[in-house]
């Protein structure tokens, strides 16, 4: 009987010890990210018949479990993924909007100044001072365009680099998850539950970090671990096997780096319709919604402004009675490549009229006799009859209805169609072409030098609707660009705030369930210390009982 009391007390001692160890472990991990507080599962051991009834034989620790609630974890992960997406988006959106400047700075002010300087020349057409000022404000306007263009290009490069480095990070997380899947499976089969808890915490923490890079869907396969899919279901990790994230250039905009997933021998390029969350999702949607359209619209504006000013300037005569030359160096425009939807020919697009240009893509179709160019709403903007093989048209160029000139090489057959994408038109080194103020062609005739009719017409370009199919003035086109980007940033910032508070709430709920509270652990320490002391006391009592019998023996 004494032995059984000793054994039972010993069990009490070791349970108290195990509890203190678990508590100490909780305290040690109070600030460990991804840690779930642990507790020991204690069950009573069997009881022994004492004739009159059954007496318990003590208790034993059967398992160490982590406080894990899958629902709460999913809430945190999902909200965090969206939060990261909006954080990446707004971070770039703020930079873009700061570049565009608003209200009374940057390009808007430079355009206003430029037109004012033209008015001043029209008031006093032979004044060298006024002409010099017009050259100066023209140069300033060109600088503003160039700065803005450089700024947008560097944002674009920043995104390219971040897409690249995110792909690298995703790979390292994917590898980690695959490795942990393997280790956990090995540990589970060997029944080492405490170590498995730590590994599971690690794996969950990595999944959460991965989800902040790209939205993931996790399926727990139990035996073979987590299967992780990214975006709209692209398999990244299958048990112990991880696929590789890589990058590819956007076929419709070669300067843009896209994420791509290598599965076996095939590489799938992923875009913002497939990757909708995490930092990568935020980067891709920022680029699609704000950066590329801004580049296109800024390019259209620069092209529209320089083409119209140059056209007017070449209609007039300068102070020496010579016909005017270009005021701005003409912009060279590189159109993005077209894409064959069906067919094998190569279609080349050039830009002819910025007014007709929109930022939406066009589709070129062929029915065996007629080529038709349709815009994104399905409206036919141009059609022509051409042979099925190599063709090009020059006067009028085919595609004039969309401000484009299209030519084809190769053979086009009935039913073929080609996509002419929205172009990230880039301004490159806009500059004023003339340095001599007398070269400004203010007069409309070569014989009356004090004439200002031509420069008056140039000043009038300010209030003419020269863009967007003659619906918007140059300055309003820029105002629209600023307004549209401001709204997008505003929306993203609101969403960021919403997902920040959702993440905070979800984290609090998750932490409320799984986090360590030091006061609670302190209370546990006292509780387990007392249990230990009590068990020791029981042991002492058993010893005393045993001794009293021994001393009673003669």
């Amino acid at each position, binding site marked *: 009987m004494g032995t059984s009391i000793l054994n039972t007390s010993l069990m009490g001692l070791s349970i108290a010890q195990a509890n203190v160890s678990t508590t100490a472990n909780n305290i040690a991990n109070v600030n460990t990210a991804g840690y779930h507080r642990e507790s020991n599962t204690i069950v009573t051991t069997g009881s022994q018949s004492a004739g009159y009834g059954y007496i318990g034989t003590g208790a034993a620790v059967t398992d160490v479990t982590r406080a894990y609630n899958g629902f709460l974890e999913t809430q945190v992960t999902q909200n965090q993924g969206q939060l990261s997406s909006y954080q990446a988006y707004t971070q770039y959106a703020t930079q873009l909007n700061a570049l*565009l400047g*608003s*209200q009374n700075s940057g390009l808007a002010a430079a355009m206003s100044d430029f037109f004012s300087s033209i008015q001043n020349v029209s008031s006093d057409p*032979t004044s060298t001072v006024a002409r010099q000022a017009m050259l100066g404000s023209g140069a300033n306007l060109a600088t503003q365009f160039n700065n803005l263009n450089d700024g947008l290009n560097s944002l674009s490069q920043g995104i390219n680099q971040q897409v690249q480095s995110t792909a690298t990070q995703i790979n390292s997380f994917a590898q980690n998850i695959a490795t942990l899947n393997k280790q956990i499976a090995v540990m589970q089969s060997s029944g080492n539950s405490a170590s498995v808890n730590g590994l599971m915490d690690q794996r969950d923490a990595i999944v959460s970090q991965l989800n902040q890079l790209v939205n993931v869907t996790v399926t727990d396969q139990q035996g073979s671990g987590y299967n992780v899919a990214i975006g709209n279901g692209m398999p990244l990790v299958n048990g112990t096997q991880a696929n590789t994230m890589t990058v590819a250039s956007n076929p419709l905009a070669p300067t843009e780096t896209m994420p791509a997933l290598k599965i076996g021998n095939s590489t799938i390029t992923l875009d913002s319709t497939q990757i909708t969350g995490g930092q990568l999702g935020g980067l891709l949607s920022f680029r699609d919604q704000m950066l590329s359209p801004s580049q296109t619209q800024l390019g259209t504006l620069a092209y529209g402004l320089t083409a119209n000013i140059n056209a007017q300037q070449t209609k007039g005569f300068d102070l020496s009675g010579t016909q005017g030359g270009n005021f701005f160096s003409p912009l060279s425009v590189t159109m993005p490549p077209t894409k064959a939807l069906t067919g094998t020919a190569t279609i080349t697009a050039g830009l002819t009229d910025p007014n007709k240009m929109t930022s939406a893509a066009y589709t070129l179709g062929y029915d065996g006799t007629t080529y038709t160019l349709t815009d994104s709403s399905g409206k036919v903007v141009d059609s022509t009859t051409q042979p099925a093989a190599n063709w090009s048209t020059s006067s009028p160029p085919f595609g004039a209805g969309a401000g484009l000139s299209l030519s084809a090489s190769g053979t086009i057959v009935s039913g073929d169609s080609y996509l002419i994408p929205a172009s990230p038109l880039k301004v490159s080194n806009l500059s004023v072409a003339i340095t001599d103020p007398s070269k400004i062609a203010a007069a409309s005739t070569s014989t009356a030098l*004090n004439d200002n009719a031509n420069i008056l017409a140039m000043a009038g370009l300010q209030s003419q609707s020269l863009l967007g199919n003659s619906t918007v003035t140059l300055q309003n086109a820029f105002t629209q660009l600023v307004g549209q980007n401001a709204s997008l940033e505003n929306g993203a910032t609101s969403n960021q705030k919403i997902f920040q508070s959702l993440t905070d709430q979800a984290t609090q709920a998750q932490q409320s369930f799984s986090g360590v509270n030091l006061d609670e652990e302190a209370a546990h320490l006292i509780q387990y210390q007392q249990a230990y002391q009590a068990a020791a006391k029981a042991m002492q009592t058993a010893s005393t009982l045993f001794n009293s019998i021994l001393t009673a023996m003669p």
Partner: protein
Amino acid sequence: MRISSSVFYSSSVGGILDQQSSIARLSQQLSTDNKLLSAADDPVAATQVMSLNNQIAQSTQYAANLQNVGQIQSEESTVLSQLQKDLTTIQQTLSGVNGGQNPSLNTPASATLSGLLKDVQSLANYQDTNGNYIFAGLQKGVQPYSFASGGATSYLGDANVRQVQIAQGQTVQVNDNLQTVMQPNSGDLLQAIDQASSALASNAPTAPAAVSSAYSMVGSALGNLQGLQAALAARQSQVQNQQDYNSQFLTINQNALSNLTQVDRASAIVELQQRQTSLQAAESAFASTSKLSVFNYL
């Protein structure tokens, strides 16, 4: 609800950071006197502000154009008045000797006429402060009238006029030429006056005819000059009206702009005070509660 220890710290710090960023924002608004720190704060107001700025810049430019035009017009108006005065005196002088009743008046009349003739010639070649001949049409640096020794006038300018924009879609003519005055009814005004003056000086027998011809030519020249002056006066009042309208429009737009962008200082300062109080409260709450721990009693 269980609060995990790490959440206790992170949420306390988060609260403090939020208050700090609100304070920074309010201070920036107050120091720049602009409540729209970024277009994204209020996209609709931001685009309105940009449109208003464009309109204000245009109105300011039109105001400058209007002022220039006004100055050019008043200069021309002064020259035309002087011309009218000279021609009226010439008319009166010619009228005094017309009919030849009193030949003793011929010599002084001739002297008066030749003096006024020089004056009229100089007015016809009037140059503004920039050295531009104001009656030369759109010819640059060309003296518009030259006078041969026989008194014949030739015009080297042209008949073109210049327009200056004074409002969107509205321009105003800023120059005139004197051809209707100098060549009335296809006759040469100054040559006729010159011939009358010479004939009077020598008491020539042609004097009465010359005086009579010059007299009638001055009459029609004066009539045409009045026509020019009336047209100029009409343009001056057009400019004046546009100036009034433009400055009203400018004021309205500037008021609208300041309504959109200016910070309501009183409410911003009150909010700043509130935020500071909240920040202090959050900080002191964190400082005092973070000291509480059961471990202190073990």
